């Protein structure tokens, strides 16, 4: 369970996040939808303790990262927007490195690693150095690396960015699998169709504020639009920065 209460973050003159509140429940996929530059990434960064909010509070299973960031990070599996790999290490070595940083013992790392390689279909390239990987291979490796410790909360910042159709489908299936395991899955996207297809709960963000926070059905009811995409556009007020 992730709770976000009235977050504010300013960079110089720019109010990147201006009073964002929502919660993401266990066993649900929560989508943060918003145009580029709406404040999604900054909100997520405050969630996974890379930034501290100017005002407001984050709670992960009731723990505030402001008081115990390490305990919060232990509970999170994060795929940031920037998810560079170590290109001189193999995919397996990349995963192992993060497993060790999580403080896991070697046997457990090996077991979890092979499970993830299986689940993500990485068998063909897991032994190769990551230099020259395709975008899809890179994202899969980055996700395996982020989830090696089996966290209850999974935060993914634009996980399907730059992926081809097959890789996108695989990614969505994987997110559903995580949800079915009872995890709290929170991801951001500017792609309306993706959010509509995946989410149990949708938080629409525009101009650093929450414009809507509801289930897909509720959103359709609220706006009186039968099509979710039209509902989004109506809520945000513009199509700019969104993708179908």
């Amino acid at each position: 369970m992730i709770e976000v209460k009235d977050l504010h973050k300013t960079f110089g003159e720019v109010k990147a996040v201006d009073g964002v509140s929502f919660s993401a429940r266990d066993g649900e996929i929560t989508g943060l939808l918003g145009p580029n530059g709406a404040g999604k990434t900054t909100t997520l960064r405050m969630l996974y303790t890379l930034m501290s909010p100017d005002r407001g509070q984050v709670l992960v299973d009731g723990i505030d990262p402001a008081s115990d960031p390490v305990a919060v990070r232990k509970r999170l599996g994060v795929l940031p927007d920037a998810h560079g790999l170590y290109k001189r290490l193999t995919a397996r070595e990349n995963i192992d490195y993060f497993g060790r940083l999580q403080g896991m013992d070697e046997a457990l790392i090996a077991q979890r690693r092979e499970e993830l390689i299986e689940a993500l279909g990485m068998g063909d390239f897991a032994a190769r150095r990551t230099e020259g990987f395709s975008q899809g291979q890179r994202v899969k490796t980055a996700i395996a690396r982020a989830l090696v410790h089996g966290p209850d909360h999974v935060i993914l910042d634009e996980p399907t960015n730059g992926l081809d159709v097959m890789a996108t489908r695989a990614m969505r299936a994987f997110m559903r699998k995580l949800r079915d395991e009872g995890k709290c899955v929170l991801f951001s996207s500017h792609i309306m169709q993706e959010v509509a297809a995946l989410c149990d709960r949708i938080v629409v963000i525009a101009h650093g504020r929450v414009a809507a926070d509801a289930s897909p059905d509720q959103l359709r009811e609220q706006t009186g639009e039968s099509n979710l995409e039209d509902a989004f556009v109506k809520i945000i007020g513009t199509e700019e920065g969104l993708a179908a």
Partner: protein
Amino acid sequence: MNATLTVFLKEVRENLRDRRTITSALVMGPLLGPFLFVMLMNVIINKQLDKAEKPLKVPVIGAQRAPNLVHALEQYGLVVEPAIQHPEAAVKQQLADVVLRIPASYPKAWNKGDPAQVEVIYDASRRDADTPVKRVKAMLEQYSRTQGAIRLLARGLSPAVSTPVVVAQRDQSTPQSRAGQLFAFMPYFFVVGVFIGGMYLAIDLTAGERERKSLEPLFVNPVARWRILLGKLGATAAFATASLVLSLVAFHLAGYILPTDKLGMSIDLGLGFAGTVLLLMLPLAALFASLQTLVSAFAKSYREAQTYLSILMLLPMLPSMILSFTPVKATNWMYAVPLLGQQLGITELLRGGSVTAVQVALVLVSGFLAALVAVLVTVRVYGSERLAISA
């Protein structure tokens, strides 16, 4: 496993797979110094040997005006070359090292018993001509003294009359200290070896990692940032130290190749020397690692970090340069100044002297204190929010 150790091992492994790091840290850094050193020394030594032993060929203008003088010079080892036109220009254009001119007034002055003038034409700014010029001057003085003595004897006086004071020279330099003087720039090679050894890692592990966008995922792990930083600093310092060790080995081997004994010099680059240098330099490995990381943390990109660090590289040159222009008498407090202490200590060792335990302690304590301050500042910078953000 401890997080710092995990980071350290991963960085070392990853960088051992990087050809650029290997070439710069473990080949160029440590070997460039010794290589340049051997080349340079060979040129210098061979030149000096050449000039001191070879027959001295000097164009003489007006040789027919002073046959006795010329004959005497030939006996001292001078080979008379035919006269040349425009001797001043020839010396300036390096066509001749030195030219001797006997003016038309010479025979007349000589016969009258007046001081007869001869001209030595040379260019003092041409260091390579030093030895021949000195040799010609010495020959002329010797001839002058001999003739003076003969004239005194002819007048029934003892030649001793004209030498009221005799200077006896007692040179206290040892073969080693003479070599040390020549090798004053060697400490700089060690310092640069350490600097280059760690440089690429420092850039790669902070600015490089940010540029490749892997810093953000790394910081999401449940590890305090200062632990990650310490692992990175450790890896950087380890490469710097490895570079230094290779450099010491290379200099040790260079000691066998150089024909320093032919110049009446000796240089000891043995185990004792290497061990003490290594000890003196250790604080610098730590200090440089954190300074380089600190600078890389401010840089926005790999290239920017590289630019800043090449400027920072001038810093360790300062003591070497200052000391080579204005040699100072080393006092203990100087050993407490990082870089200066290393410079003085290594120079002293090269001169065949030794450093006291107090001096070693001063170097170590001050060096590690400076390194500690640098590490603390770097920890602060590493904790900043801005650091992890790639774009």
